[in-house]
């Protein structure tokens, strides 16, 4: 019961509804994505290219719906691995990422507030979270079960197993890993990073964080000079000038 109450609190706290906050997300992420696209000449998600949003792999340990809200407000296609198999019934399919080469691909390794399991066992998308009381969707009580703690082994859990594998596979071919605001305390992620440091000699890491230096020293020493600290916040970070 405690875990359920905590998860309900997390959904309520991490599900962004506030229009002012959403406007801020739209502004900051648009600047970030435009800078990233310009810096690396990335292919765009939207054919018109007005938003400057690149087709890129974004892994996150955040539960929140920040990136989803950016995509929704800007009108960009996002792939989170879930597909609607019939109305109000979603399922995770890792192959969907491969079928979405022109999308913003979002991999939520520790789960998400944007899906919940209904009383009948089906998974549905969360579109609104009431300010108080139980989460009710399609006339049923919904359980925000899709939030997974990151500090315990999740090696056999779906979709975490698949997402962690996709993370490793993406890094094995990557030229650049851009880490933003991450403390790297998840042992599973750290193990993947450690393995990749030995198998992908071309990859360079950039860590954007006010504590970037200390995190690199404690968690990314295997990368040596290939790991670069950018002592900035997400908001003050400018991809086009800071990634050198």
């Amino acid at each position, binding site marked *: 019961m405690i875990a359920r109450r905590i998860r309900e609190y997390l959904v309520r706290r991490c599900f962004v509804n506030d229009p002012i906050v959403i406007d801020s997300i739209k502004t900051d992420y648009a600047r970030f994505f435009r800078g990233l696209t310009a810096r690396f000449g990335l292919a765009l998600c939207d054919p018109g290219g007005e938003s400057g949003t690149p087709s*890129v792999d974004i892994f996150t340990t955040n539960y929140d719906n920040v990136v989803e809200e950016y995509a929704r407000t800007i009108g960009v296609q996002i792939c989170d691995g879930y597909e609607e198999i019939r109305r109000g019934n979603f399922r995770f399919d890792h192959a969907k990422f491969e079928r979405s080469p022109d999308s913003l691909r979002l991999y939520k390794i520790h789960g998400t507030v944007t899906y919940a399991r209904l009383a009948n066992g089906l998974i549905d998308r969360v579109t609104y979270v009431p300010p108080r009381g139980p989460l009710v969707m399609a006339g049923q009580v919904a359980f925000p079960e899709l939030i997974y*703690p990151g500090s315990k082994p999740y090696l056999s859990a779906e979709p975490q197993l698949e997402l962690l594998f996709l993370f490793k596979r*993406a890094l094995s071919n990557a030229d*650049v890993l851009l880490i*933003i*605001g991450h403390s790297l305390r998840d042992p599973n992620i750290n193990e993947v990073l450690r393995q990749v440091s030995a198998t992908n000699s071309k990859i360079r890491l950039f860590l954007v964080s006010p504590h970037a230096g200390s995190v690199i020293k404690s968690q990314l020493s295997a990368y040596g000079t290939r790991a670069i600290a950018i002592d900035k916040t*997400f*908001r003050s970070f400018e991809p086009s000038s800071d990634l050198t």
Partner: protein
Amino acid sequence: MSGIEVKGAEKPAIVVLLGAGASVGFDLPDNRKLAAEVTNNLQHYRKRIIQIREVVKRAGVTDDIEAVLSILQFCEDPSKASRDLGPLSAILQTSAALCQYDLGIR
């Protein structure tokens, strides 16, 4: 900008990893603040959550929300945790007892 560019016309493969720090500017708490908020806002469970956080801290682990949820997940289904951990689960028997009786979770 040397060092990132790849040879030829091929675009570099970029992967982004976002952590809580990427969202704090949008009035979203990081995992440590979430643990504090949950402790303060779920008054009915406050004592138990504090107990869990203290146990975690004594073990030298950061008492953030993921640590709290990990403990609760273990306490709610110790048999699954035992299966996941295999032989290591033997040393966790005392922890299971702690969850069941000291914290009154189950």
